[in-house]
Each structure stands twice: as structure tokens, then as C-alpha cells.
């Protein structure tokens, strides 16, 4: 299954991916798997989405077709053509 995945500006900036295209196509079936594939492709992202033990940071958020996912939905199956956005949550100002 092909999913179009976007990374938020912060993730692209911190992962050193600003020169990469805004979105990329990933063959995976859940948001968590998509993230794994992308981190495999760009290891510089790892520290911004996983902790030292490899667990997902609570600041990592997923949106599917602009809908924010609940943590229990992170492993749910995506549909062909879904658009996934991965965001580094942050609160400031």
C-alpha cells in the first residue's frame, strides 16, 4: 500500500531534511510503520521522534487526511491514498 507522508516543518528542519520534497511516498500499512520506514531512510530524524529506548516520544503526533489521531489509532490500518502528516508537538508562546 502506498501512503503519501508529510513531515512538519520542525521535523524537516531538525532532521536536516529541508532540501527534501515536502511529501514522500511510503509503502507501509499503519502510521507507526510509515514512521519506521522514514526513520530508516533518514536516521537523523530518530532523536526527534523516539526516545533513547526507542519508544515513541509523546511529542510525536499523527494526522490522517488532516484528522488528528488518538494514540490508540497509531497502529490502525491506513487506506491506499491516505495522506499522513507527522508532527513534532510543541507548546510555546
Amino acid at each position: 500500500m502506498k501512503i503519501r507522508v508529510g513531515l512538519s516543518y520542525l521535523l524537516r528542519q531538525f532532521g536536516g531534511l529541508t532540501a527534501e520534497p515536502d511529501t514522500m511516498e511510503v509503502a507501509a500499512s499503519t502510521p507507526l510503520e510509515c514512521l519506521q520506514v522514514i526513520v530508516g531512510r533518514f536516521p537523523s530524524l530518530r532523536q526527534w521522534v523516539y526516545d533513547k529506548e526507542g519508544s515513541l516520544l509523546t511529542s510525536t503526533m499523527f494526522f490522517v487526511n488532516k484528522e488528528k489521531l488518538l494514540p490508540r489509532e497509531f497502529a490502525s490500518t491506513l487506506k491506499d491514498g491516505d495522506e499522513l502528516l507527522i508532527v513534532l508537538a510543541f507548546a510555546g508562546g
Partner: protein
Amino acid sequence: MAGFDGKMLEVNLSRGEIKKTAIDKGVLRKFIGGSGLAAKLMLDRIDPKVDALSPQNELYILCGPISGTALPGGARFSVCGKSPLTNMFAESCCGGDFASKLRSAGWDGIIVQGASKKPVYLYVEDQKAEIKDASDLWGKNNVEVNRVLKERHGGRDARVLTIGEAGENQARYAGIANGRSLAARCGMGAVMGSKKLKAVVVKGSGKVPLADPEKFAERRKILIQKAKDNIAAQVLGMLGTNAAVDVSAATGDLPGKNWSSGDNTAIAAKTGGPVLSGPQFLAGTESCFGCTVGCKRISKITEGPFAGWTGPGPEYEGVVAMGSNLVIDDMAAVIWMNEMCNDFGLDVISTGSCIAMAMECMEHGILNTKDTGGIDLKWGNVDAVVKMIPMIARREGFGATLAEGARRAAQKIGKGASEYAVEVKGLEVPYHDPRAHHGLALSYATSARGACHTNDPAYSMGTGIFNWPELDLLPTLAAGVRESKGWGPLVKKSQDLGQIINAGVICYMFNLVMNGEDLTELLSSASGFDYTFAELIECGERIWHTKRGVSNLMGITAADDALPKRLLTPTTEGPAAGLKIDLELMLKEYYPARGLSSDGRPSKETLSRLGLSDLAAKLYR
């Protein structure tokens, strides 16, 4: 015990008298300091019926046990009094470098009473204090007055609080500046202006007292490491608070076009953290005194009509106030207009909100250029905003209407303008959209000072990066931000914690890296009171109810726990499209948890449990 002793400098400007007083230790323990202590002082000392801009109102410039210490996030102090904007209890917090000098001069706060006949400033050097003539400074703005007074009183050693023209002219949302930082909210600069107090200069040669310096240093070390390891603190250091623009746009938290647009990603891309901290605009970074995070930007403008300027860059709130909410995507203009607000001494949140309301009135034909003195307040018009800011600060022409704040200005404009005034209890709403964070909606409706995202951490809770297991305030709460159910008891707990932080006084960003043990150890070792976390939470509760009770005495009732119609109407596009806040349900769950009676006053049982019999006697006479 040499900790936080509550040593106050009491200045009566009507009589030209200065005296030294000390706060009772029992009061300090129960109200901690900062805005907590201010609530108690207001209860005891101010007639609730006074006009906020009359000599009978008092201005409290207060430190807490943490203020001015070398703890990262410990630079802050509070400015409090009755607000001319909301007519109720008001607090405004400021970073910068003033608190460290005030405390090293041997003072924990300044109480200003009365009003001078001519412009004056207060000069404090250790235990000496003097009221000096400020006639030559009147009419000047913050940057210039700060420069002149530093030059006059010993350069870097002198720490200065100032008001600009907005404060002098009593614009109801004028703030007080400490260099680049502003105690911006609630109009405390107007109160200072009403007293003809142009500035306060402090020089101190002592040390900031700590009851247990070793224990404090140990905890400080732990926190510095935690901040280093914390993703949010790292982001703050790299991109400043404006990093939130990017995330806010994705979650539906970023308002646009006076809160009518739900999809603001295009403007976010041009005004977000990476742009402000990118090579085009970043000249450097700065920190408040003692902070290792360095979230402050120094910005530069190299092209266009504002080219050639370098200075303090905007925070998230300033970027949205002057950016997406006015449909402006020109980063250089946003930086410049933010600086104008700071220099004139206007709260950028309220200024942006009042101008956005006027722009919407213009769009709907409620206002025209005849009303505004020829200024075409249409969406995105930078030139119009640049003209409007000084007019507000000087109360010139249509600026005099907007200087009254969104609520009063809308009432004056009439013809349905109130529909476009986005405020709670008279305080313009900060730029985090509660339709995307229902817990924040309840927090806005019930905060101790009107709509506020820093009176408690409900906003951080909604983003999923807040983790205080001691209070069961966990990152997983973010899962419920799209629903109204269940927030009542959580917001109550969040408010109790917020009161402690603001009484401390501790930078809000640091509740993201602390836990209950850190907070308890810090406040105990700094103050000398052997607090437990449970006792602190009770202090938080007591402080919240005292602030609320003071506001009740000033006229606030349950009917004021409301949100503007704009925020109760879902957006039609963007990530929060269709989400409707059920405020009625939230208030129903919140009131019993909060210990409020149905008319909005703290219940008699709550007051008795918290030892607030003095407040009970005034509320239930």
C-alpha cells in the same frame, strides 16, 4: 532563615512618602509570593469599587521565592493590581533582568499607592529609595527611556522598568517594559501611567537570598540537565516560541482573520519558527537572566520599508497578533509592528485583537474610512496597522476607541460590532484556538484574569507534551482535546498548579521539564518553608479562590465565565473544522470540582477548608 522574607518598599506617590514594610510570615507561606501574594494584598488593601485608574488603586511589583535566582526560568516577577481593562483582579508576568537586581537590593517587591501630580520615577539603590522628577522622560517610549536611565544611573548595573506613551495615555491594555520583556497583559502600564510613574530604576549590590543554597543548587543542576534533554526546551532554544506556529497550523490551534479562518497553513509557512529563526531574519538569540534555554530571538530586517533595524524579535503571540489574525504574511512587517507595540508599550495580543475586530467591522460595513480618519483597515494592510499603533498609544482619533480594548470599543462602535470582539471578561484572547483544545476553552472561560493561556497549563496539556503524573495530568490527555467531556476536574487541577508557578515566580516554559518534587524542593529551599507538594497544591487552590473572590467583590459572577460567540462557532475548514465547544457541559463538570457555588463565588465550604474566613466574611456579608 534568609529566604523569601516579603520585604516591601511601599511608595505613596500622592504624599511623596516611602516606607519599608514586611509581609507576615504566615501570609507568605500560604500565598507563596508573586501573583498569589498580590491577591491577598488586594483583598486586604484595595476597596473593590475603586476605579482602576484612580490613585486608590495600588500597583504591586512582586517577586516570588524563585524570582531573580540563577535558576533557568527564574528571572520572572509579577505586576498586579485592579485591571482597567477587565475591572477585576489582574496579573502580568515579565522575564528580563529586573527581579534579580530588585532582590539583590534587598527587596521582594514594591507597592505603589496614590498618584503623583507630575511625572516621576522611582530610584532604588540597595536600601535607599528616592522619587525623582521624570518630566524630561514623559512623552518618550520604552527603548529611549531605558537607554537614558541606564546611562544616567550606571549602565548595565541599573535595571529599569518603563512605560511608553501607551501607559502615559492610559490605553487600557498598556504594559510595563523591562528592556525587551513586557508585563503586557491586563493594562498594568495604564495603572502605572495613571500614577504618573514613568519608570523604576533598581541597583543592588547584594546577593539574592536563598534559605538553603546547597539544596537549591542541587535542584538547579538537575533542572538544567532536564531542560537539555527535553525536546520542547530544545525546540525553544533553536526556534523560540514561534516554533509553535508550525504545529499550531497543523492542529487547528492557529487563528486567522480574527478567528474566522480555520486553515492558516499558508501564512504559517511564511511567518513560522523556521522563517523567524532562518538566515534572513535571525541576528542572534538571548535569554532572560540566568536561563540556559535562550528562547529569545534577536531579529534583523534587511530589505523593504523597515530595512536597517535589528532588535528584539517577536514571540509566537506577537507573530500571530500581527500576522495570521490580520491576514499579514510579511515577516519583516510582523517583526516591525511587534517592535512598535513593545516600544509604545502596548500589549501586542490586545492590540492585534482590537485591530482585527476593526478590520472585520470594516469588511462588514460597520466602519468606514470616515470613522477611522481615512485609514483603510482592510485585511492584510500593513500600512494601516503601522499607522494605527501610535494612534492607539496616543489615543488619537479612532485610536482612542481601540485603546479602550475590544469589548468597550465594540460597544462604542455599536451596530453588532461586539460579535467580532474576541475577549473573555474584557481580556482579548491569546492566539491558541480553543476549538482545537477543549480543555483550553474551559481554562479561558474561567481563568483568574480573563482569557489566558499562561494562568494554567491547559494549553500544554492539550498538546500532549505535559507530564505531571503526581496530578494525573498526563500526555495522553491530548487524546481528548476534540471533546468537551471530562475537562472540568482536570482544568481545576491544572489551575491549582498554575497558581503555584505564577506565585513562584517561574517561567511557564519550565513546567514542561519539572515535576512535583522539583517544584517542592525549589520553593522550599528558596523560601525556607518546608513545603510538601500537597501543601503547595493547597496554596494553589487558596490563591485561585482568593483571586476569584477579589474579582467577585469587583463584580464578576458566573455569567462572566463565558466565551465569545466566535469561539463557540466551529470553523468550516482546517484541522479543527466542525469541532464545537460545549461550554455548558464543561462548566457543569467544573463548578463542583472547583468548589464554586452556582452564582460563581467560591462556596462557603471551600473558603472554610482553605482558611479564607476573611474572604468569606466579605463575600457573604
